[in-house]
């Protein structure tokens, strides 16, 4: 299974390609399929610490307090580069087939690079707590 990690430069949070076990399983299957099609996905963002997400939120105009928690904080989301590239349609279809929800399908503000495991992950807040405490224990 092959993927690359984007170099986003000094202003972005570090990319941590760390995933919850459920997400990793689905992602492995999806990326293997993409690799077979000759596509090497480039990960732009994956796991985020609570403080990184909070900082990101504060730079935006988001006002919905219920949405302040992201699947990125649960290690259950991945942003993939190249949303206007010809192969992105294949990426969307393969990721969806492997259980991921796509941000381009959101009814409100769309998030095309974003795929998350809300369909197989269960409770978001519990998943965030688990992922954050795992991350803290490794630091």
């Amino acid at each position, binding site marked *: 299974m092959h993927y690359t990690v984007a170099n986003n430069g000094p202003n*972005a949070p570090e990319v941590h390609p760390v995933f919850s076990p459920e997400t990793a399983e689905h992602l492995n299957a999806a990326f293997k399929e993409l690799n077979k099609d000759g596509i090497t996905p*480039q990960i732009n963002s994956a796991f985020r610490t609570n403080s990184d997400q909070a900082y990101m939120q504060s730079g935006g105009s988001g006002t919905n307090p219920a949405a302040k928690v992201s699947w990125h904080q649960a290690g259950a989301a991945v942003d993939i*580069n190249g949303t206007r590239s010809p192969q992105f349609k294949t990426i969307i279809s393969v990721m969806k087939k492997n259980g991921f929800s796509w941000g381009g399908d959101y009814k409100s503000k769309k998030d095309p*690079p974003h795929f998350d495991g809300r369909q197989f992950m269960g409770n978001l807040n519990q998943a965030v707590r688990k992922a954050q405490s795992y991350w803290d224990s490794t630091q």
Partner: protein
Amino acid sequence: MNASRVRTIKTLGLRSVLWILIVGFLGAISSAQASTPEQRQMASDNSASQNFFFGTSHDSKLGTMAWLFCIDKDRHKGQIFVAPRMVGFSELNLGVDGTLTFQSLDFFGKNYRFKGTLKSSEITGDMQLVDAKSGNPKDKWQLTATQLSGQNPRPGEVTPGRYSNVDYSTEGGDFTGVDIRFFSTNTGTTGMIVFYESYWGEPTFTPLAFSRVEASEGAIKFEVEMPNGVAHYRVRTTDTGGVFNREDAAHEKGEKGVALKRSRSVFTAAPGKKG
């Protein structure tokens, strides 16, 4: 005696209020005649630009990076654009000999520290990215910056402005879109592009500087130097903004480009807000 004094003060008070109202009314009329909202915006931007500097530096992994910062010499304050917003300085020192040092507040556990000189509206020096916790340097760039002139563009140049579709998706927790800003300098049009969503594999959150800005009827073309070569972009201008596309990339059949909204102010940073 006391009653007479009170009456005089009251009368003076009423006269003053009347005078203020009349002067205010006349002022409002003359200001409405003298400036349209567009002129007022331009005047405000011109005044703001006096403190703004636009710089570039080379990075082997990212290409030509752009830097936008604001320095208030009188109040020893400043801000640096850390996409998507301006981040304040925790300290700024400007010596009489032109020595300039500043440090930004922390973002994502990091901060910027600059050491150099400010002479004749030009800043040169080293910008360092530092780990906020340990104080260890993470990266360093040689930077040259020029004070933005705020002057009106010469014929054939691009009018300063911002083309953007940047937004924050609360559901996904991500910024999306692209932000393009054209600035006016004494040597012509310059500017920067920040991808919050990597459309064709570009680095995100990094302001990248343009080169070869060309304005023709109905379109603005510019180039961006990246490590894997020069990328060619075009904004086809419309009544409300533009349609953005990369000219040298493969496109999906029927791809129409990215719709952007235009705003006059180039210095506001918060996405999703009018600016």
